[in-house]
């Protein structure tokens, strides 16, 4: 009786608590502590972090900086890997589709900019980027439409082939520049507004170097910081979009498809359509990164897109923790940054990298920053193991 008379009141009382719990569950322990801070502090912290990220190439911090390569250039490489990893995370982490030819999308984006910007036509940069993204997305749909009917290992093999097909097509087509590649790819248009002085370091004391300045915003050859800023800005946009998709019907459909495709289909999820959407979204982001790469580089050829790059992208996502956007960002940063940081140990570089991957696979197979739920499941399973051991002993 009482239950019937106060259902509205009961739900109203229960709801905020449940909603809070749900939000809290999505975050780690650190996230919860941060979440407890008052809003102005949170906003301030976020703003500082963003500012720090933008200022990185100017600060050139001694421990972070790469002694053997231009730090701005390394940061750009890291940022483009992060972008790629975010794209691959949609395909692999959310929808659970193993794509071994992701470099193919990266190459399509880069080649679109190169061919339409320099080799066959001279379109403006502002046209090139959207065109590159659209064409890559279409290539994602074209690849996905026939291949997403196969599952698991078979999909991995087909996509592996796709990556190679793109590279070999470029290598053997005169209109794609063959092995010589394509030069004079247009850079982003510059607009010179003001100059920002860089920091210089003498040991651990910093001084403002007025002779060494970064022109805002000139996309040249020597100073790579503006490319990094551009890539970083795009990362923020992609992150926002990623979050919006994840917290919607689309993210749920991807996840359900990953968990149990047949059950998802029988619960009303058109799984094929959503897998295709994941592929297209991944291609979109991969193409964007490739287009940026080409317009920074100014020159591309088929050697720029080896199979190894697909494997590295995959490593970035898996190392970081597939399914967690912060994890894959960390993974991409590690995969792209560490080899540059330790370029001094040239001949040991790949060995150490391989060893690190092996250790990681052995001791932390779920990645550096796995999705929250994986961590929680693990905690529960460990607890159960402990309990079982306890009863066995008793």
């Amino acid at each position, binding site marked *: 009786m009482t239950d019937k008379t106060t259902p509205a009141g009961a*739900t109203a009382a*229960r709801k905020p608590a*449940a909603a809070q*719990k*749900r939000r809290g*569950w999505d975050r780690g322990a650190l996230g919860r502590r941060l979440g407890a801070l008052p809003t102005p502090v949170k906003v301030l912290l976020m703003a500082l972090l963003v500012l720090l990220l933008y200022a990185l190439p100017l600060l050139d911090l001694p421990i972070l900086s790469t002694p053997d390569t231009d730090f701005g250039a390394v940061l750009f490489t890291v940022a483009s890997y992060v972008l790629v990893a975010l794209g691959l995370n949609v395909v692999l982490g959310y929808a659970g589709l193993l794509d071994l030819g992701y470099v193919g999308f990266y190459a399509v984006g880069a080649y679109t900019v190169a061919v339409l910007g320099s080799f066959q036509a001279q379109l403006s940069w502002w046209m090139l980027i959207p065109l590159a993204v659209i064409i890559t997305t279409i290539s994602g749909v074209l690849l996905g439409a026939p291949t997403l009917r196969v599952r698991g290992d078979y999909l991995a093999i087909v996509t592996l082939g796709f990556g190679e097909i793109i590279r070999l097509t470029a290598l053997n087509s005169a209109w794609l520049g063959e092995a010589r590649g394509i030069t004079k790819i247009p850079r982003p248009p510059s607009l010179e507004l003001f100059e920002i002085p860089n920091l210089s370091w003498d040991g651990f004391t910093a001084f403002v170097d007025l002779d060494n300045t970064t022109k805002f915003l000139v996309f040249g050859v020597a100073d790579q910081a503006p490319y990094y800023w551009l890539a970083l800005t795009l990362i923020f946009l992609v992150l926002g*979009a990623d979050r*919006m*998709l994840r917290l*919607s*019907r*689309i*993210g*749920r*459909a991807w*996840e*359900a498809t990953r*968990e*149990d495709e*047949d*059950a*998802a*289909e*029988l*619960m*009303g*999820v*058109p*799984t094929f359509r959503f897998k295709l*959407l994941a592929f297209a*979204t991944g291609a979109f982001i991969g193409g964007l990164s490739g287009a940026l790469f080409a317009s920074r580089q100014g020159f591309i050829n088929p050697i720029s897109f080896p199979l190894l790059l697909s494997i590295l992208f995959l490593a970035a996502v898996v190392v970081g923790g597939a399914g967690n956007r912060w994890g894959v960002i960390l993974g991409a940063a590690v995969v792209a940054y560490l080899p540059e940081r330790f370029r001094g140990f040239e001949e040991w570089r790949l060995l150490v990298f391989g060893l690190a991957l092996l250790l990681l696979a052995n001791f932390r197979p779920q990645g550096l920053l796995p999705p929250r*739920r*994986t961590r*929680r*499941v693990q905690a*529960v399973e460990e607890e159960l193991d402990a309990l079982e051991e306890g009863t066995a002993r008793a």
Partner: protein
Amino acid sequence: MPETPTDGGPGTSTSSALLSLENVSLQFGGLKALDDVSFEVREGEILGLIGPNGAGKTTCFNVMTGVYHPTSGLVRFAGEPLGNRKRFAITRLGIARTFQNIRLFPNMTALENVLVGADAHHRTNVIDALLRTPRHRREEREGEQTAREVMRFMGLERRSDELARNLSYGEQRRLEIARAMATKPKLLCLDEPAAGFNPAEKAQLMNLIRRVRDSGLTVLLIEHDMGLVMGVSDRVTVLEFGRKIAEGVPADVRDDPAVIAAYLGTEADTEETA
């Protein structure tokens, strides 16, 4: 050798038939999984579908939900043939099911599992999600409301933030029903919902199935537990070796010699085992 199968059956009052199988056969190579099966589920009833192991009960479900398309014959839902509709389209039409072996989305929370069901009728696309359009917001709100209602109905409201794989066995079974109900079906197909339940849980489930029916749904129930099936069903259809061998109200079916033979074996068999 035993009694002649009661063919055709009393399925004449087509006006109230929500789902009907008309001479459905399904062949896998040389194996006839379903052999000329006809029966109907009437609107608002609880129909029990029983038969020994391998009789074709789950295959019937698979034919109704589009997992298999019949080799011959027709499945009609609300008068319309299902034809070659995809599985998700059939769900949207109003047939929802659970699985004999639990098939939840284990790494999603209980609430998210049910939300996926509620999403069956949602139209939010990428643009809606990116721009947080009114459609997205309305569907999210409605979806969550539906999901929470269904979960309360199933007694799972306290478990909504738990991962599906961390729920107890009984809760997982109930969550499957909740997920199916969130798709707002007209016909709910339960595939052995009481498997592994103790008597108290079975009694609870019987109660629940009746409440589902009373809320306006039609229920098709596959179940091995005779007490449960006979207690809750309005009518019972019996399959054996892919054929229908009996149909009727529980009391009649229970005494049907063909059914007894199917379950207990014929006299010759009994002598052998005894």
